[in-house]
Structure formats: C-alpha cells, structure tokens
C-alpha cells in the first residue's frame, strides 16, 4: 500500500529498510552479547560457528544436523501424506453425504478437541519407532484437512451444481467438474494449516518420544547442556523449513488457482 506511488524505487526502499533493520539488529545483538559475556546470550558468530560444527561434526552424539533434518522431514512427510490420503476423500464423501457426518459427530467431535500432542504418551505405549511419529503427525494434520474439505464441499455454490445437472450430467461428472475444483482451494488451505500443526506435533513427539534423532530432540539435548547457541541453530533451521514449506504452498496456490477472485494469505 505504502509503496504504490513510486512502485520501482518504493519496493527497493522497503527492501533496503529491511536490510538496514536486520543489520542494526545483528549489530545490537553482537554488542550486547559481547559486553555482557553471558552464557545465555551467545554472539551471532558463536551461533554461526555452532551451525557449521553441527553440520560437519554433528551433535554431542555425532549425529549431524542434516540427519536430524532428514529424520524430522521424513516423519512429517509420512504422516502428512497419510492425513491427505485419508482426510481429502473422507471429507469429500462426508460432505456429499452430510447424513454420515451428522450421525457420527458424537464420536468425531470429541476427538477433534483433544490436542494431538496429548496423544503422544498413549502412542508411545502402544506403538514403536517410526509409526509413533507418523501417527501423531497424521492425527495433527488430519482434522484441518478433513474438516476443511468437508465444510468446503458443503458450501459449493448450488447454482454451479445445477448447471451440469440441467444438462443431465451424471453424479460423477458433477463431482469431477464442479465439486472437486470448487473445494480445491480450501483443501489446500487445510493442508497448509495441517502442515503447520504437523510441525508442532513432530517437535513435541520428538522431545517426548525418546529417540535421539530429529530436530525436536536435538534442541532438547542442548537445553540439558545449556548450550543456547545450538538451540538457536535448531530453532532457526525449524523456522527456515517452516517458512520454505509455506512458500511452496503459496506458490502452488497462486499457480493453480488463477481463477480465484483474490487470494488472501496470512
């Protein structure tokens, strides 16, 4: 908004100010940590060094940062894909047959309100290894995807359905041509939200689950050793991955949903 007037130079201005803000921030951080010499406030350079060490030598147990990232993303991916495979068709089906959802609400709704993280101890007892994590991620990502799809199917514009119906289209044609394209943006939003919750869940599951690979457990290990710089590295990596995945979603949404009036992203 602010830079509409002089788009070209305005954009550069905003970018420049951001660079300036970042520089000032890093400078301040350096100075304060340098003066305070506190264990709890490492300098940016210490953090950078920790990052390089984590990449090359690995953590206290010799597990490299890359390995932690790999493990966490693999778990997320498995649970997330499972959530999509189950949540999208089920959401479409229950949206098309509202009776089914309305008559099973008494079972579905209470489960929806139990935070997925609260399942972790139960899952630790009942499942082992990889399946623990995949299950928790699945649980966390499932509901946003499922509910998003379901509500979206229910709110398909009835006139859009009547158009093919007025030509005598078959049910499957209507689902393929109208229902699915119309719900796709909401499915995507559900997936984006589900992915975010999936990340929260994997962090908690790794911290509680007791294995020693994964970004969540990595930062917890360093909390016990009071090594702030390594915790910071972990958090920055987590934030960067989260940001990156979100960008991919937004990119795809912009591409696929060209027909949308306007895309509101927050």
């Amino acid at each position, binding site marked *: 908004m602010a830079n509409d007037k002089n788009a070209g130079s305005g954009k550069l201005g905003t970018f420049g100010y951001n660079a300036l803000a970042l520089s000032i921030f890093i400078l301040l951080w350096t100075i304060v940590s340098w003066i305070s010499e506190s264990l709890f406030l490492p300098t940016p350079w210490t953090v950078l060094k920790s990052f390089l060490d984590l990449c090359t030598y690995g953590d206290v147990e010799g597990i490299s940062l890359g390995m932690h990232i790999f493990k966490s993303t693999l778990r997320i991916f498995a649970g997330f894909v499972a959530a999509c495979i189950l949540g999208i068709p089920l959401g479409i089906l229950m949206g098309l047959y509202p009776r089914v959802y309305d008559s099973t609400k008494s079972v579905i709704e209470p489960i929806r309100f139990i935070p997925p993280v609260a399942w972790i101890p139960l899952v630790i007892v009942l499942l082992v290894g990889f399946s623990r994590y995949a299950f928790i991620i699945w649980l966390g990502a499932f509901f946003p995807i499922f509910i998003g799809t379901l509500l979206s199917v229910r709110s398909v514009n009835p006139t859009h359905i009547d*158009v093919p119906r*007025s*030509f*005598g289209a078959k049910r499957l*044609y209507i689902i393929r*041509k109208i229902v699915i394209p*119309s719900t796709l943006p909401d499915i995507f939003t559900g997936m984006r939200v589900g992915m975010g919750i999936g990340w929260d869940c994997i962090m908690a599951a790794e911290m509680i689950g007791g294995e020693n690979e994964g970004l969540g457990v990595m930062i917890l290990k360093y909390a016990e050793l009071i090594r702030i710089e390594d915790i910071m590295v972990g958090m920055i990596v987590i934030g960067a991955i989260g940001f990156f995945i979100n960008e991919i979603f937004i990119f795809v949404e912009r591409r696929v949903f060209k027909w949308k009036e306007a895309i509101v992203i927050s």
Partner: protein
Amino acid sequence: MERELIDVDMSMKFDNLSVLEDIKFKVHENEFLVIVGPTGCGKTTLARLLGGLSKPSSGHVTIAGEDVNPKIHNVSFVFQEPSCIPWLTIWDDISMGLEIKGNNPQTAETKARIKEVIKLVGLDGFEEYFPKQISGGMKQRVAIARAYATKPDFLLMDEPFGHLDAQTRYLMQIEIMRIWEREKKTVAYITNNIEEAVYLATRIIVLSKLPARIKAEHSINLPRPRDLTGPDFLRIRAEITEQCEVVG
C-alpha cells in the same frame, strides 16, 4: 398453430408451503412463451420443474409425452443467479453442455459449434478469459451461449437479465430476439418485468401472487422489432400491468 411440445398440469408444495397450484398449460413448438409474475410467487420453482431439475408434488410435466428429464431430453437452462463456473474459461464453460450431451470437445465439429455460439453472443476474443475478468452482461451471455450450444429442443430462461442495469438489459433483449429469430427455438422465458415480456413474447402467461395460479394468458401478435412506445404495445402492457396489480 404449431405442434404441442410441453404439457404441464401440476401442483408444487415445499413441506407445508404451497407454491404452485393447478398450473396447467402447454408450450408449442417454436413459440417464445413468457411467464410473468410478482417476485417470490414461484417462478423459479416453476422453471426448475419445466427443466426437470425438480419433480412436482402432484401432476406432471411432460415433453413429447414423457416426464421431462434432462438426461433424456435436450433441454437447456439459463439461471437467474450468475452461473459462470469460476474455474472454467469461457470456452470450457460453453463447451460443458455439449460435453455432457456426449460430444467430444476436441472434435472439429464440436469446436465449430462452440465458435459459432460464441460469435452469436458476441464474445469472440474472450475464449480464454476467466469469469472474474469479464463484465456482468458478458457473464449472462456466456450462460446463454452455453444453453444455446446444445441446440436444445426446449430452452428455459429464468430472469436471465434480472441482475443487469436497465441499459444493458435492453441491449440484451434486442440481442436475444436477434438470436431467437436466427435459430428458432421453443423458449420459456421468465421475468417480472412486464415491458420485457411484451417486447419478447409470442404468448404471455400471467401468474398470481403466492401460491401461484395462472391468472391470464395473452397472445401477442405485434410485428417485430417491436416499438416500445407504439399504441398497441402500451395498451397490452397496461392491461397486463393491471392484471398483475389486482390482488391475487
């Protein structure tokens, strides 16, 4: 008088709300039948029944002696609500009816037909546009082109220009008349605008307020293009207006 195509004799209720009572009329081949009635009287309900989108609570709506069914009969519907499909381009939207009727949209023949109707409604050059990129009047033309493309035996239009401003509406009326004179069709056209009715119709059916009954019928034999200010036009218009205002 031409052959009778559609035979209507039915009543319609929603739960306990009686909307249409003893609606009984016929539609003849190639006639432009206009149905007028006050807002909320059940015009859309009637149109949906004529198009086979819903079933009457009692009685029948038949086309050539058979219960109307879009899966069997070649009927088309132009909706009162904006009905462009947001994720389809104008071209894909217009080809939808043809596709459902079993034409492969990739064949030269189908493509030629789509081109033809696009030209007919004056949308050439906008084939690859999405609905969000065109005006309200253009969207209505897409809906008409879509309905026309399948060469329907029976074309239903439910207040197709109700959302448009008076100027555009007038232009669209001229256009629809032009199209109808070129490709004669059996049309049932629904409106609450009496001037529009007299301008377009070969015959007018007047509905009462809810629950709707048939209140009057008029054959309009004025020459075309009709003069909105001609004495005969004004006389018929006044007559129907009077009928509409009598408490129904």
